[in-house]
């Protein structure tokens, strides 16, 4: 028995666990820095401030990890649908029994214990996708199967949009990264990226004529260099016309968006547009990070984050505290940790012997990748402000626990990859 236990511990990917631990602990120190007040210093363990609260949540996360590790590895496979549906139901009831904060109803719970179903629905959706797609007959080159996968993703997205929580809803689009690995046709991604690029250019460039000219040039180039088939030429010309129409209609569409979303987009191009209004977050966030310099101001020495210049600094803008106090060096170290974690997870996913684990692994990669890149990009003005947390760093129970569950289910599955071998097709 004893030998077998030792053997099991050895199967856990300790590199991933170590990076996780580093990020959580570093995040905890940063949460303390964000609320630290030099005039009334309190201990990092003080339960009346966020760092103390977060420590309790980290403790709870540790218990969750233990529970996942002792659970039967087959449970996740078996419970996938039940969990998926359970959280869909929770998402449906949230607007009715939840607590309203700033016009959004995101959390439900009893007393001070509250959770955000939209955070946990990420891993249940991941499990459901893995479960659904593990069938040997499932083939993403078929439009029918593509649609089925998209429907599984879109149901929680629509429910979350109703709360409304656009930021979290956007995260679900990250599953398309997993779909890419599983064989979704490349054309979609090229078109999607081109669409995003053209949208950004259309919003960013004042005179649309330049853009239209560029589109025509590319289309012409493709027609001349490619095969001269009628169908292809017609398709390309069609795409070209559609693009031009899209470019001109975009300004109109943007003007029809709710004002706060409109502003978030426009501030990306010019944060000084409204430095005290919508631009405030981005401007102050950049000031905080930018003032950190190469080595940073030193732990607990930051002024911008400490004195509330950056809003939401212990949650969505926690990266500011890091950037200000640990400078470029600290920020880069954290980015390297995240990138190492992501690439390690790709490596782990690829070594899975069954499809369920691999798909689930890629779901983990997708969600984390999206969160990390979008969150950090928005703090430095590379992306519009989207209210999503930085995994393992940001203050808040739901976010820490949901990322912990998401990650450790995969670590659990990975540790059992030999047992799961038999089910590989």
């Amino acid at each position: 028995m004893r030998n077998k236990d030792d053997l099991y511990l050895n199967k856990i990917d300790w590199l991933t666990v170590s990076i996780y631990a580093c990020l959580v602990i570093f995040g905890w120190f940063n949460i303390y820095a964000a609320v630290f007040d030099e005039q009334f210093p309190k201990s990092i363990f003080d339960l009346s401030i966020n760092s103390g609260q977060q420590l309790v949540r980290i403790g709870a996360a540790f218990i969750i990890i233990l529970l996942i590790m002792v659970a039967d590895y087959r449970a996740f496979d078996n419970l996938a649908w039940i969990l998926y549906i359970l959280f869909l139901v929770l998402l449906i009831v949230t607007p009715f029994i939840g607590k309203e904060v700033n016009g959004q109803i995101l959390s439900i719970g009893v007393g001070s214990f509250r959770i955000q179903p939209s955070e946990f629905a990420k891993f249940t959706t991941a499990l459901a996708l893995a479960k659904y797609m593990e069938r040997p007959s499932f083939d993403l080159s078929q439009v029918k199967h593509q649609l089925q996968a998209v429907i599984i993703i879109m149901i929680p997205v629509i429910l979350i949009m109703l709360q409304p929580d656009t930021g979290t809803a956007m995260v679900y689009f990250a599953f398309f990264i997993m779909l890419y690995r599983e064989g979704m046709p490349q054309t979609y991604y090229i078109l999607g990226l081109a669409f995003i690029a053209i949208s950004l250019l259309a919003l960013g460039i004042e005179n649309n004529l330049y853009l239209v000219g560029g589109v025509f040039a590319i289309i012409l180039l493709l027609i001349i260099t490619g095969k001269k088939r009628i169908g292809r030429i017609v398709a390309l010309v069609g795409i070209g016309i559609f693009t031009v129409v899209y470019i001109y209609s975009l300004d109109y569409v943007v003007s029809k968006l709710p004002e706060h979303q409109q502003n978030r987009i426009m501030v990306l191009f010019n944060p000084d547009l409204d430095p005290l209004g919508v631009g405030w977050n981005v401007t102050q966030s950049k000031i905080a990070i930018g003032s950190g310099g190469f080595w940073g101001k030193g732990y607990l020495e930051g002024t911008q984050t400490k004195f509330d210049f950056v809003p939401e600094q212990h949650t969505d803008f926690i990266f500011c505290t890091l950037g200000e106090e640990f400078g470029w060096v600290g920020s880069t170290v954290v980015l390297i940790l995240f990138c190492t974690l992501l690439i390690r997870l790709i490596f782990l996913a690829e070594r899975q012997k069954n499809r369920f684990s691999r798909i689930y692994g890629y779901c983990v990669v997708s969600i984390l990748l999206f969160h990390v890149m979008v969150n950090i990009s928005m703090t430095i003005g590379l992306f519009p402000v989207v209210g999503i947390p930085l995994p393992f760093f940001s203050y808040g129970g739901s976010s820490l626990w949901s990322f912990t569950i998401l990650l450790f289910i995969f670590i659990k599955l990975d540790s059992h990859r030999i047992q799961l071998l038999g089910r590989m097709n």
Partner: protein
Amino acid sequence: MNEQRPIILSIAIILVGLIIVARLFSIQVLDDSFLKRAERNAIQRVVDHPYRGLVYDRTGKILVYNNPIFDLMVIPREFTVKDTARFCEIFQISKEHLIENYTAARKYSSVKPSPLVKQISTTDFARIQDYLIDYPGLFVMTRSVRSYPQPAAANALGYIGEISARQLERDTLKYYRQGDFVGLSGIEGYYENTLRGVKGVKYKMVNVRGVDKGPFKSGEYDTASVAGHNITSTIDLALQEYGELLMAGKRGSVVAIEPKTGEILAMISAPTYDPNLLTGAKFGSNYLLLNRDDSKPLFNRPIMAMYPPGSIFKVVQSLIGLQMGVLNPNTTLSCNRSLVACHNHPNPVNLFGAIKYSCNPYYHQAYRMMINREVSRNTFKDTEIGLNEWREKVMKFGLGGPLGIDLFNEKGGSIPSSKLYDRVYGPNRWKYSTIYSLSIGQGEMLVTPLQMANLAAIFANKGYYYTPHLIKAIDGDPTKIDIKYRTKIEVGVDSHHFDMVQDAMAEAIYGTAARAAIKDITVAGKTGTAQNPQGEDHSVFVAFAPKEDPKIAIAVYVENAGWGGRAAASTASLMIEKYIRGYITREALEEYVLVGKFM
């Protein structure tokens, strides 16, 4: 076909990571504008204003000090009051006033302090101090305003006020900030750099709402303010106050100088004002009132008013004539009234008599001898050369240009040169008969009362003076005052020439200004009348005393008071007695001066 996709994904992750790291490098390391913006955000520079230097009179009495006044400040968020009636009683504020101020404070900021009760006096402050602890969110902020225990010497001491945009522009060292108080006139203005001290700076951190979060880097960059230097003025407060009393209700100037040092003992500009009017919160409205006042109390007459010197100038003429050798004590000339009008006196007179009786025709003839020396055969040319040479000698007496007193805006008067007459009449179109009025101190010449008092000092010193000045010592050290006020200036007339002139002046007062005589104190003086085309002539008198060892030289101008022997001589005489004796023996004369109103 999907085998290379994990690699593409890994490369994409690294690429995005690199973009973010590069962006971070650009805003954190390459671009330092964020650091500056961060400092502007969170670090507030609080100026620690230094304690402005005090001003004492020559006997050590205080003239200007800093009066602390207290503002009761409120931080609305922390402030609660249960019994409003009692609160109003303690802090002596009406309920409406309290509500009004509190609402305004709330509106401004609930976390930043605003004034609740302004300008509480020291005595009121002592009373309310003990109650403060009962009311959270209240504290007292101390400010100081310039105060004057005696409402005297406003024109000499000057005032401070908020710095103007133009002064800020000229402040190339960038010491001042908008809203700073600077000396604008008088000693306050001239000695601004001495009195002001050095500002200190405290860097404190503030949060996004502007709430104080303690010193930046534990005060590592803070500097303490350095108090300004104290100044001992040359003013004798008792004499100054007495002079202002005598001049009350009149228009004019009194300047008293200690001849041996050039120290100004009193400098009275009448009408004057209470310097306390131009302090603190009332500065703006009071300044406007004073500025609009027809009697021009802000006009510092001793250094800014200019009059023809009149007969007193005959003393200067005598001295120049003696030095030139044109005159000697025995030069006797007839009182030829066909040349210029005169009054009854023995005829003919020698130089002594000319001074004593102020004989106009004597100086008409003597001046011609000084001007037309037959250097040129052309009488026009000869006059031009003579005038310019004479002018240089006159200017050595401190006339024709500012003396350089330690006050701003000193006027220099004027002594005409050939250029002036060339301009008016054309070159070679004027000669002695054109300019002869200068002989008796009339015509195209102007002097200030200060220059006149300085002349008295020159007569007293027998040929030298020190530039008149208002400060005696800085921080008690007399060597710290400007070297120019400690440098003897010779007027270019040998001292033995002064003996006879002094005797004549001592005699003169019995002829023209008998009221000036004081028992047991030999007063040497000379009356004058400054012609005033607009109305009654101005009464002028210069004197020094005691003749044997002069302690005081004085010039008195009383506008529109007619002949100098009356109002001006009486005032000067009283001032001299007050300064030398410390008390007045002639109440009747004092009464005469006090009731005289010449406005």
